[in-house]
């Protein structure tokens, strides 16, 4: 029997969800909708009598105060494809019901079934949820269709309910074993490529030939499972083969051969610096550095771009879920203590007709991504305390979603080693058909068909499964019950077991894996990327205790195989061998990439400056630009304080709403030691010169560390490259040049890289034309701070204090936001003078240690003018400044105000500390530019003595807050 229970709000109860959708409908430009209501539908099937279903509905599903329920047990019949509608006197009501597609995780199912069992009702066989929308008002059929498709459902994971029964059967089929082999031995090159394409393997011809050669030696064809395993392991996502390949690089007529870009740039910094506090770098899931005498901290940032493009909510949620598992898989598991998220979207005000076919509107993507991070991160109980959001038209077809997590773990739990004879235990979520081909899919380009072809790669996460797993793992870790652990990320069991058994060998009996439903083939089990799973290596003697801990906390775990010593990967399904590969071939057999790279300097229009005398309007426009404006709408949706460790929150100032530079947490309640997390990202500089972009990103991340009172002493970096298709020499060229920048500047600052990630092929093709994202480098910094009570915020503190600018301003308007609002790019992107910069960073650290800095803000987008404005309105105070004494290589007010030169800060100093401060800063370019005033206005006088900015701080703040006040 199938019951349908619909939960509706009682009359007079305000429906905030419906209200939000009504607003979104207005944003679509559709007028005439008067009211939207949402109800939740539960479809419960099983052997349940009516009185029990009434109890379930009345006691459990409906809130007795605000909701009522409607019960039905009829199977719904077809509605001829058009949703039900009813007419009233003046208005019309349209109704649509949205359900998940078969196989998509419905996170409510597991917990709701548990609750029904708690009530003593045991007959439930399945439980699914749907949403029903009631839209009242006069709208056309076309409008309604638009609302459904653009707001209410995403066909990749959902559908509008028309008839019941037909679709839900898909997973009830049982699976009958049949070994599938692929005829490679008899295949010519054309056929090899067809095999790669049809199987969504994303392997190139050279790789396919290499695989053919291997099997030729064995005298047999590969099984589907073997081929899939190789494709997963060799995917760009897992293998980083571009960075490790051979590159012929041309720049201004000179050619250079680079054998392994990663080793020659990013990793070289770390190797040469040899910092003793770097515990584990570029080996494990994340970089690990020392925190204090007892613990280490680790940090990883991942990307989840393509899944977020197709299904923003699920994509970003599983992105954050995935990077959290990365941290759980570092050493013997670290405890996640903070998240950071950085997004790049198309501008939210993009005209609908400019959005390419098959893509969602940037605003919808953004809202979905934020919701996804919110719902997953908040449920995990990990504070999302840092982040950034950038906008550019080039991200319309391919948004970027970076998710990062920081973890902490005891020193003696920082390394892992599975041993021969250890059992392979899969724990956490069950394996399903979701997420097939994620690793290979993310290594290819998006097309307007990606939504249909690769929909299996898109998933919805279940954070509670992961939360349970986290709590339980940390308990088991502290009891030393396992020897190694790895997350099931891209590639599923295939990459987890393959990686853990790399130097040993492994045997797995695939039928032992716990499945969400019957019907999965052996290969599907092996490569499924179903979420919330971890793989452990468990000595036989501790298995019982481990299993009992898992059981106590309702976490499922099962032995699926063991590690051997024969260096082979052997898989069986009910005793039949389905895969038997050499670990050596699997991990080292990949032919190396050879790529051509070219970089040439572009030429852009410069901004015109026809004797402009007042810059107030420019400043207001910069503050209102998408990149600079307040992100409070996003930040407040994230729980950034759970775990109780925040010292500097993302928003600071007298009204708790100013833009803080970096976040600080204090991982131990009884210690003053803290961790600073910051990030630097600015693709606009990369338009001009990726080398300067890389230097500027590093400088920005470090500036923020220094601005909040940190030092470079124990500071490490992560690199994260999101680029276009690097098969194309120009894309590859800019990647190379950015890597050179990373090496030079990080080395000069003495700051090592400890981990990184690259996501290539961020392109979107429409009708054969490929649009690449701008090469986007995210640099994240992690810094250990000895005493968090020395932290500094950017809000001005008191009338009468002195305002200094630290660092010289150069004529570097290229890529600036001043140019952006004046519709040009320019050609002189900011360089980094690391020798001078290092002096500035170190002296400023001394200053904050002595408690002299009352406020400090780094200069970035919008330059000095934006920084002064932000400091003023965040502190609720005014500023009187003049530019005469600001150190600048050319005396132009426009440049002093808006150039985005690196390594610069604004500092607020007490009058009584003037001499001490200036003595400390001797030999560094600084300028006393003004005072904090009680007048609540920003007044700036140019070098010639004329007033060039004069505006109230309320007006500045309003300009800054208005754009994203959604």
């Amino acid at each position, binding site marked *: 029997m199938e019951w349908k229970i619909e939960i509706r709000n009682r009359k007079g109860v305000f429906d*905030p969800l419906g209200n*939000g959708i009504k607003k979104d409908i207005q944003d679509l430009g559709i007028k005439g909708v008067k009211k939207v209501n949402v109800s939740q539908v539960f479809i419960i099937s099983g052997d349940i009598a009516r009185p029990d279903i009434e109890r379930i509905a009345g006691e459990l599903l409906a*809130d007795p105060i605000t909701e009522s329920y409607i019960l039905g047990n009829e199977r719904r019949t077809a509605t001829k494809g058009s949703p039900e509608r009813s007419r009233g006197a003046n208005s019309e009501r349209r109704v649509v019901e949205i359900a998940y597609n078969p196989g998509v995780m419905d996170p409510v199912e597991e917990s709701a079934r*548990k609750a029904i069992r708690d009530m003593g009702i045991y007959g439930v066989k399945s439980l699914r949820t749907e949403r029903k929308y009631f839209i009242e008002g006069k709208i056309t059929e076309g409008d309604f269709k638009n609302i459904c498709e653009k707001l209410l459902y995403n066909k990749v994971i959902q559908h509008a309910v028309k008839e019941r029964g037909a679709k839900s059967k898909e997973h009830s089929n049982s699976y009958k074993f049949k070994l599938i082999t692929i005829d490679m031995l008899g295949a010519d090159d054309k056929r090899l490529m067809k095999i790669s394409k049809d199987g969504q393997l994303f392997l190139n011809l050279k790789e396919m030939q290499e695989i053919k050669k291997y099997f030729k030696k064995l005298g047999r064809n590969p099984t589907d499972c073997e081929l899939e395993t190789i494709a997963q392991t060799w995917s760009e996502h897992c293998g980083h083969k571009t960075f490790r390949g051979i590159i012929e690089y041309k720049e201004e007529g000179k050619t250079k051969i680079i054998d392994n870009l990663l080793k020659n740039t990013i990793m070289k910094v770390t190797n040469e610096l040899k910092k003793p506090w770097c515990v584990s770098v570029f080996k494990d899931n994340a970089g690990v550095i020392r925190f204090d005498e007892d613990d280490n901290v680790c940090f990883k940032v991942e990307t989840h771009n393509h899944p977020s493009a197709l299904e923003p909510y699920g994509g970003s949620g599983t992105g954050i879920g995935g990077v959290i598992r990365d941290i759980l898989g570092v050493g013997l598991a670290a405890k996640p203590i903070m998240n950071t998220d950085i997004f790049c979207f198309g501008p939210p005000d993009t005209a609908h007709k400019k959005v390419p076919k098959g893509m969602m509107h940037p605003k919808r993507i953004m809202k979905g991504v934020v919701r996804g991070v919110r719902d997953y991160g908040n449920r995990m*109980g990990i504070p999302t305390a840092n982040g950034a959001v950038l906008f550019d038209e080039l991200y319309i077809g391919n948004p970027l979603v970076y998710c990062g997590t920081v973890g902490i773990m005891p020193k003696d739990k920082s390394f892992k080693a599975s041993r021969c004879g250890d059992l392979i235990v899969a724990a956490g979520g069950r394996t399903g058909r979701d997420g097939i081909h994620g690793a290979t899919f993310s290594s290819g380009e998006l097309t307007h068909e990606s939504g249909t072809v690769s929909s299996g790669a898109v998933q919805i996460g279940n954070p509670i499964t992961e*939360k349970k797993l986290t709590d339980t793992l940390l308990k088991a870790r502290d009891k030393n019950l396992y020897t190694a652990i790895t997350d099931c990320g891209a590639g599923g069991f295939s990459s987890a077991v393959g990686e853990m058994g790399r130097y040993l060998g492994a045997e797995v009996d695939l039928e032992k894996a716990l499945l969400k439903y019957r019907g999965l083939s052996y290969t599907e089990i092996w490569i499924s990327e179903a979420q919330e799973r971890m793989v452990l290596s468990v000595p036989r003697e501790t298995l019982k205790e481990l299993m009992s801990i898992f059981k*106590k906390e309702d976490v499922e775990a099962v032995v699926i195989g063991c590690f051997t010593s024969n260096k082979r990967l052997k898989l069986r399904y009910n005793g039949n061998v389905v895969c038997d590969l050499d670990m050596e071939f699997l991990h080292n057999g990949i032919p190396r990439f050879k790529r051509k790279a070219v970089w040439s300097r572009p030429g852009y229009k410069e901004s015109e400056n026809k004797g402009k005398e007042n810059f107030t309007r420019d400043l207001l426009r910069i503050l209102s630009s998408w990149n600079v404006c307040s992100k409070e709408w996003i930040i407040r949706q994230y729980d950034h304080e759970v775990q109780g460790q925040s010292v500097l929150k993302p928003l*600071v100032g007298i009204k*708790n709403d100013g833009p803080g530079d970096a976040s600080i947490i204090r991982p131990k309640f009884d210690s003053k030691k803290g961790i600073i997390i910051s990030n630097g990202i600015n693709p606009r500089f990369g338009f001009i010169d990726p080398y300067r972009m890389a230097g500027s990103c590093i400088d920005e991340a470090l500036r923020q560390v220094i601005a909040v009172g940190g030092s470079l002493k124990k500071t490490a970096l992560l690199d994260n490259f999101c680029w276009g298709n690097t098969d194309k020499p120009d894309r590859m060229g800019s990647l190379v040049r950015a890597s050179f920048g990373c090496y030079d500047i990080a080395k000069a600052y003495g700051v090592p890289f400890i981990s990184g990630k690259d996501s290539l092929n961020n392109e979107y093709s429409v009708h054969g034309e490929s649009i690449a994202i701008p090469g986007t480098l995210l640099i994240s910094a992690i810094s250990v701070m000895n005493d968090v009570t020395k932290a500094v915020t950017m*809000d001005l503190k008191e009338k009468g204090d002195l305002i200094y600018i630290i660092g010289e301003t150069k004529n570097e308007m290229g890529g600036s936001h001043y140019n952006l609002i004046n519709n040009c790019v320019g050609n002189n992107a900011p360089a980094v003078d690391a020798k001078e910069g290092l002096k500035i960073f170190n002296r400023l650290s001394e200053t904050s240690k002595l408690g002299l800095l009352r406020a400090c803000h780094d200069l970035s987008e919008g330059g000095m003018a934006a920084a002064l404005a932000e400091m003023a309105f965040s502190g609720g105070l005014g500023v009187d400044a003049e530019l005469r004494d600001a150190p600048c290589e050319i005396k132009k007010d426009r440049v002093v105000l808006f150039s985005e030169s690196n390594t610069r800060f604004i500092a607020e100093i007490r009058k009584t500390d003037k001499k001490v401060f200036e003595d400390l800063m001797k030999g560094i370019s600084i300028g006393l530019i003004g005072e904090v005033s009680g007048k609540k206005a920003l007044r700036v006088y140019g070098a010639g003595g004329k007033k060039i900015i004069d505006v109230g701080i309320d007006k500045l703040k309003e300009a800054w807050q208005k754009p994203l006040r959604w």
Partner: protein
Amino acid sequence: MKKPRVIILRTAGTNCDKETASAFKMAGGEPELVHINELARNEKFLKDYQILAIPGGFTYGDDIASGKILANEIKYKLNEDIKGFINSGKLVIGICNGFQVLVKAGILPGLNSGAVEATLSFNDSGSFIDKWVELEPQETCVWTKGLKETIELPIAHGEGKFIPRDNSILNQLRKTGQIVFKYIDNPNGSIDDIAGICDVTGRVMGMMPHPERYTLGTQHPRWTREGLKEFGDGLAIFKNGVDYVKEKL
């Protein structure tokens, strides 16, 4: 005297257990994190503790509704134990998700034994909110004795709008002094600005804001401008509970 024993009840999706334990420890209690399965399987016993704390989080994902599934589980598995616990004069505190659980299990406001008389529903904004709020505490409850005229604490919830069943319930709450925390600037649309309530005994209290997130000075959002205090406003709430047990139980 022996330190009061505090059971911090946790289950799948509990988040704020460790900081709540830390707060009770700072207040002089002896907290212990206990999974609900340990109680249900008789491995641990509620009666061995003097204070029951249900911390914040998203128990069971807040699926169906916030706190609902844990409330349901408590109703079916621990109802008698909790009743006995309360009737023996001991203390209960529910914070955020814990408050939602107490209300949805019919333990708060507890005017008619076991009946659900109120709920916590979606914020008017339709979205989760993390922000600091000012609260006006009332003196009528064990947990809120001697607090300052206004205190500051953070909220972090998506379903914090307090709605009593009807006006008569609201009037009763007012009359008996069960409304113990009111928002000065209502962030979620709660009826009568209600942020926290207690039962008629004043020993069982639930609140949406998070006192455990403000026990240390560095947790305040403006400590860099207003000066670093040694302790946060929230600590006094935990001290009240611990001190009460020390004096009376």
